[in-house]
């Protein structure tokens, strides 16, 4: 096999597919190699028990970039738009919020929430304009970078003195203090804390959890959607678009290493021993695995290797799936409410306490949960009358003390079930089977180092100009021909697509075809 491609993309995650589409549309001959048997990376829908299917990782869509949808004519089938979040109360006095609306709290909380949401949305919108382009580099004399930096300063200033000051005050701050100053309702504070820390190794009292909150709101103000057929439908659609655009996709083809000659990438070698050749190699794989395993430290510089090696990527979010005979009962909720997003986070201290364990390599005794019952709105996911529950559970550290062995898994499942039972007393009776995907499982199944959603922790020291690491923030790695296009690059994780788009545009721009 000596066929030469214009670009080879390692990994058919959503960003890899988005990147391939942009390149193919620009006339490039692109090959995408995927280790698993279907495209989508971690954004797939898969069966976990007989006819029960569920989104393997992310289960709600809230960040897919409109620009990507528009550019690629992607037509995601959305069943349920603008889903409400319900923070569960064990007495049935739940708090609901959606957009700038909140119910079940005092008048002052309601007023404060509207103000809070307005300001946060404004800041998030500002951030999102920077998510759709490569971050400017610091310390260069490149005019484009300098202009982009100047524009960032200008955009901040134009918000007005007060708002700019607020932005600068909040951006590095923890969400706990901000929520505590503003709100009374423990449930509301609990729910918003979850929004800020979901998918991270951070607690609400950790620094820059306002940033992670803004990140969540950055596209469409964080409006939550159910894609029809689970998250896999989005990536399947992307895969089809890529196919139509002429992208060649090979599944079941795991890349073993990136081939390098004389300091320049020339192709890839698969685990099966096949070689594919291209001078442009784009990795949708996380930065650590890309550099340490596929490239090898021999081929890159010491300080760069050192930085990549120290990228923080300890996953902490597990996925928990239940196949249910019937929906459980929750006091104060009717059947329609099961289409909402349910949160178990009774107050902000509960969330912080749940994180405490993770700091020391233990799983939470009282975990926080984001629960969805996607089969309520999407019958394709479960046999008629039956249901699936898909939950994100935190915290369950990747590097659990003693490892994720059978008994550790059983213990954690017990803990989750006990937590659920507090709100759904009859849940155990309805369970047909359960599945737990710990960060260790996610690493194994989806080849993400550390099993981290974002491939690299979303924190200020790994954000924008320094994502994944200083000196490599514009998708191009310090190895000629090697690019990254995954969640580990700017702007970050979630089903977003900006990284894939930005990377493709960067590559096209460099060769002058954009």
């Amino acid at each position: 096999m000596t066929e030469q491609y214009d670009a080879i993309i390692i990994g058919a995650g959503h960003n890899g597919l988005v990147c391939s589409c942009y390149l193919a549309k620009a006339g490039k001959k692109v090959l995408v190699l995927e280790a698993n048997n279907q495209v989508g990376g971690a954004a797939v829908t898969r069966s976990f028990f007989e006819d029960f299917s569920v989104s393997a990782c992310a289960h709600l869509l809230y960040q897919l970039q409109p620009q990507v949808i528009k550019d690629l004519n992607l037509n995601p089938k959305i069943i349920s738009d603008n889903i409400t979040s319900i923070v569960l109360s064990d007495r049935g006095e739940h708090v609901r919020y959606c957009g700038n609306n909140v119910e079940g709290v005092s008048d002052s909380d309601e007023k404060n929430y509207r103000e809070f949401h307005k300001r946060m949305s404004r800041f998030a919108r500002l951030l999102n304009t920077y998510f759709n382009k490569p971050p400017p580099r610091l310390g260069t004399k490149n005019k484009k970078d300098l202009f982009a930096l100047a524009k960032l300063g200008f955009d901040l200033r134009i918000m007005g003195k007060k708002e700019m000051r607020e932005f600068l005050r909040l951006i590095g701050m923890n969400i706990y203090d901000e929520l505590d100053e503003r709100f009374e309702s423990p449930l509301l504070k609990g729910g918003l804390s979850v929004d800020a820390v979901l998918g991270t190794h951070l607690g609400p009292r950790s620094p820059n959890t306002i940033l992670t909150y803004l990140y969540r709101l950055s596209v469409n103000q964080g409006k939550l959607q159910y894609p029809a057929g689970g998250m896999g439908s989005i990536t399947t659609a992307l895969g089809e678009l890529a196919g139509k655009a002429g992208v060649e996709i090979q599944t079941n083809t795991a890349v073993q290493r990136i081939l390098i000659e004389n300091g320049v990438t020339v192709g890839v070698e698969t685990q099966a021993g096949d070689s594919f050749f291209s001078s442009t190699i784009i990795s949708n794989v996380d930065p650590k695995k890309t550099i340490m395993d596929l490239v090898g430290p021999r081929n890159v510089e010491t300080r760069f290797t050192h930085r990549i090696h120290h990228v923080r990527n300890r996953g902490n979010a597990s996925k928990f799936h239940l196949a249910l005979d019937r929906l459980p009962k929750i006091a104060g909720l009717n059947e329609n409410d099961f289409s909402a997003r349910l949160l178990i986070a009774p107050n902000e201290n509960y969330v912080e306490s749940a994180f405490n364990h993770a700091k020391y390599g233990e799983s939470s005794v009282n975990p926080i949960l984001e629960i969805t019952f996607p089969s309520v709105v999407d019958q394709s996911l479960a046999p008629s009358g039956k249901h699936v529950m898909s939950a994100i559970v935190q915290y369950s550290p990747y590097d659990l003390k003693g490892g994720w062995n059978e008994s550790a898994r059983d213990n954690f499942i017990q803990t989750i079930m006990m937590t659920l039972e507090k709100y759904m007393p009859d849940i155990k009776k309805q369970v047909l089977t359960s599945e737990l995907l710990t960060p260790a499982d996610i690493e194994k199944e989806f080849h993400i180092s550390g099993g981290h959603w974002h491939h690299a922790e979303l924190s200020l020291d790994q954000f924008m100009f320094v994502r994944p690491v200083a000196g490599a923030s514009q998708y191009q790695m310090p190895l000629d021909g090697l690019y990254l296009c995954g969640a580990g690059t700017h702007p970050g994780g979630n089903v977003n697509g900006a990284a894939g788009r930005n990377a493709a545009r960067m590559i096209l721009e460099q060769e002058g075809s954009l």
Partner: protein
Amino acid sequence: MSAQEVPQGRCYTPFYDRMKEIDRLNNWTTWAGYSSPHALYCPEVEYFAIRNSTGVFDITPMIKYRISGPDALEYIDRLVTRNMRKIKPGRVAYAVWCDDRGQVLDDGTIFHLAEGVYRLCSQERHLPWFTAAAIGFDVEIKEETEDIAALAVQGPTSFSILKNMGLDGLENLKPFGLMYFDFKGEKMMVSRTGFTGDLGYELWINSEKAIDLWDDLFVAGELYGIRAIGSEALDLARIEAGYLAPLEDFLPAEATVRTGRTRSPLELGMEWLVDFDKPNFNGRRALIDEKKRGSTWRLVKLDIEGNKEAHSSYIFEHEENNDAEIGFLTSSAWSPICKQNIAIGTVKTPHGNVGDSVWVEIYYQRELHWSRVMAKATVVGKPFWFPPRRSQTPPFPY
């Protein structure tokens, strides 16, 4: 558990007691945390021991790292600019290593002790850098400065002295080679290396046998003019040999604060040590860029007219009407053996081609009054002192 005594201040090398016996000047300095003699009785006499008989310098404070493990070769080959695959067991390589921007961190000698086992010797400590460079490599890096005592035995009679000590087969040792000998039941390594640009050897042995080695060596060398020396004499010898001293002629990149004060190997005249054809080494990308772009600085060796030492002088292109200097001197000396006024310096490119004439501005004091002279200097290519005996194998016996 009783409190352990922690050494404070300077450490002593195992040879300290012997040197102290000879010492008449009490002129000591610190080298890597050890007391090291600046001069022991008379720097001039010590210098002439190097050039006319044999000088013995205690190089125990030289920082020594043992690098071993399955990836040792890959690791070192990526660390330094030189192609380490060509350095077989039993050979020694002079090498430099760079940061990611291709700027020199330090230079040193790498001894290939046995298949896959290396000793790296350098002026400065580098464990943080070497550890960072080891990420992803299966290697062990251990500092063994304290465990290994070492002596530089340098000068025309050094070979005869070591033969007289009973080192059979030494005549076959080529420059930059190493051999092992038995010394009173202890393995002693002898390498034909040094910092004087002359015939000479370095002896490496377990610290416990250090005193025995010193005593035997001085007995064997008694009739061959053997003398212990200090660093002042050695510094003069190394300038004559055209060797660079870190912190004198260049700054290790990590020791600089201001931009533009670092140097690349190309700027230090070490292009012969840079192998662009081998797989990646640290700094390769940056050095390829520099080659395309052209270097900013160039290291020069200068032969200066007159006999006034050009200490730290500015270098100018012309004798008069100079707008700005083109460089400066970093090491300078009157060379007794070459009868030349010599210096090592740095100039901006494109100045400093071999054969170019430049001018150095020398200030000198006569009874408190300062005078200034512009002295013509010629850029030379070869070291000032480069005797054939340096590389002759077998060496000439006395």
